[in-house]
């Protein structure tokens, strides 16, 4: 008690220190909370484009359509109501532009003042109609039935292959192509960076003279400090045209370009982590191997690499983690086409690049905005899984000692 009155300042400082320690944890929880609060909102939304109505004749037995079905109907791939559970009759699509086929300009009114009433009449007249129009033209005594669109489901969101977040009349929210694009680019990056990085780390740890190592190490560390947008710029002006020329492609902005740029960016992480791992090999082990007549190279690949394999896999996983979350460089060189990728020579779109490219245009709180937050959630979960794996691998390593 006496102590407290002697050092009130000290108590305050200690309280501050504890609070600071807590702030970080709170921040992480806040990030998770905000991401998931916005992101999960999408699963209570129907995928109708903002401010529009899809309506049918009141007698039509079809009560609900999925976003995919709506798109196929408007793309003329589904043409009969019986394909979506209705009567055997052709689907007749009515969009606002078609109004002139039904009524003259006088009947609509100079300022469209009779438009709601006219749309009402059209829908009431034709039992096979599927009408789509802005909700400002929905008349008060609308006799048609507004069609419900099936809510977006978690499964549909993840397995859907089409990503058209602003298409009318029903937005398509399928992220499979984005997930596959992200994985493809990251996988390609590791395929390129792991052998190179591992070789460099072995060279630095065992072969290079201390003097040479003293020069190479800071140079490689510098590689880690260069901003990703500079790598993206370099990829854009050098690697992309190069790929276009070598493979004779119409565009050079491909998964391959993304993989190369990301691979270069992942190199420093892989090199420094696996070099550290190689250096942890106990000296006694190395010397025992050499004393038994093994060459230095045999010692490296039969003793040191197996001993530090968990550290090396940590390096690989961390490299993948960096590649998955990387945004700007990928955004600039991969072409951003949201299709299911089949080869490295096609444009792909990754999750971070999608968020970066589209968030600026998505109205706050809308379905597109929420979909991008849901993408953020997926990205967060992916990187979290990777970090937990790294923790597990390194915990195992400690256990083995």
């Amino acid at each position, binding site marked *: 008690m006496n102590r407290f009155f002697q*050092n009130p300042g000290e108590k305050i*400082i*200690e309280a501050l*220190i*504890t*609070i*600071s*320690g807590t*702030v*970080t*944890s709170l*921040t*992480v*929880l806040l*990030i998770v909370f*905000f*991401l998931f609060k916005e992101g999960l909102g999408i699963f209570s939304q129907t995928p109708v484009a903002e401010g529009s109505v899809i309506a049918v004749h009141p007698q039509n037995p079809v009560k609900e359509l999925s976003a995919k079905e709506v798109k196929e109907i408007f793309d003329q791939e589904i043409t009969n109501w019986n394909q979506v559970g209705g009567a055997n009759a052709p689907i007749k699509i009515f969009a606002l532009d078609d109004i002139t086929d039904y009524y003259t300009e006088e009947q609509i009114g100079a300022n469209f003042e009779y438009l709601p009433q006219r749309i009402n009449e059209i829908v009431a007249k034709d039992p096979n109609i599927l009408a789509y129009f802005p909700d400002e033209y929905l008349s008060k005594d609308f006799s048609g039935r507004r069609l419900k669109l099936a809510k977006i489901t978690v499964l549909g969101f993840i397995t859907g292959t089409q990503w058209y977040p602003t298409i009318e009349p029903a937005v398509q929210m399928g992220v499979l192509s984005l997930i596959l694009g992200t994985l493809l680019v990251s996988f390609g990056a590791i395929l390129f960076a792991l*052998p*190179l*990085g591992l*070789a*460099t780390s072995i*060279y630095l740890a065992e*072969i290079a003279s201390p003097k040479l190592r003293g020069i*190479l190490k*800071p*140079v*490689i*560390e*510098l590689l880690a*400090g*260069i*901003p990703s*947008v*500079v*790598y*993206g*710029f*370099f990829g854009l*002006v*050098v690697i992309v045209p190069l790929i276009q020329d070598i493979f004779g492609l119409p565009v050079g902005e491909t998964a391959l370009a993304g993989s190369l740029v990301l691979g270069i960016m992942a*190199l420093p992480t892989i*090199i420094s982590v696996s070099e550290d791992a190689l250096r942890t090999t106990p000296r006694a082990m190395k010397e025992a191997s050499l004393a038994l007549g093994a*060459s230095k*190279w*045999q010692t490296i690949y039969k003793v040191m690499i197996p001993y530090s394999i968990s550290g090396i896999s940590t390096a690989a996983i961390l490299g993948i983690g960096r590649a998955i979350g990387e*945004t*700007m460089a990928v955004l*600039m060189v991969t072409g951003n086409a949201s299709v299911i990728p089949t080869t490295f020579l096609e444009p792909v779109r990754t999750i*971070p690049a999608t*968020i*970066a490219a589209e*968030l*600026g245009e998505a109205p*706050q709180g809308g379905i597109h905005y929420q979909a991008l*937050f849901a993408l*953020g959630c997926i*990205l*967060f979960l992916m*990187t979290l899984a990777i970090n937990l794996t790294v923790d597990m691998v390194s915990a195992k390593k400690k256990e083995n000692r």
Partner: protein
Amino acid sequence: MALQSNTHTQAGKRRAQAAAFWIFRLLSFLVVAILVVILGFIVVRGISVISWDFLTQMPREGMTEGGIFPAIVGTFCLVLGSMLFAFPIGILSGIYINEYAKDSWFKRFVKLMTNNLAGIPSIVFGLFGMALFVNYFKFGDSILAGSLTLGLLALPVVIRVTEEALKSIDDSFRIGSLALGATKWQTTSRVVLPMAFPNIITGLILSIGRVSGETAPILFTVAAYFLPKLPNSIFDQVMALPYHLYVISTSGTNIEASRAMAYGTAFVLIMIILIVNLLANWLRRYFSKKVKMN
């Protein structure tokens, strides 16, 4: 016969080793060559663009002429703002984790969360910053929102740097100080922290380098596409170097005409990173000499 085969395998072993080592040497030089090519390319193309006017003038003619002064000022504001936020909290958290926290679930929780924060992709910070600072707190696109977002990004780096620096101080110093009757805080502030200071300051400077090049977190929290004036308050938007480079190399009004400016901007960004690295190295050496002299 046995002897012969032995010498034979010896020679084979030596050949295998020589071949393997040559492959490693070549691959390592390839890695360094990649870096040299990237740096060299941007330096060679960029250095001819750099002039006093380029550094001190506003961009003109849809960013095809003029300089990048507002972007330099903007980046400076963002770095300063984020550090004002990240340094105190980060350093205090590092002290908490290493000096004060007992080995409890809470300490493990804080450490786990710090690691998580370090692993979150930068674009997710951008999403969060937009949801919380821009929209929820209604800061709008502003230096304040951008600095806070970047500060969060720098936080785990600062914490880890502090923690590592403190960890490297031998326990005998703490015990000695406590035995002389100093309180915990006196020990921490007068004995442990001064000794860890060189390493902490080096790490902090490196985190400045990282923050100054980040693009994704500022996309939706502060960065302006084209804003040829300087900010008046912390609620203003600013241009920033990395975002400026992104814009003029992908979506400017005339990409070909803006190329020179893009090389110049990339050059300035790389120079910032280089200077920050050199400064950190110099400080590390300067302080280690000083410690030795004492």
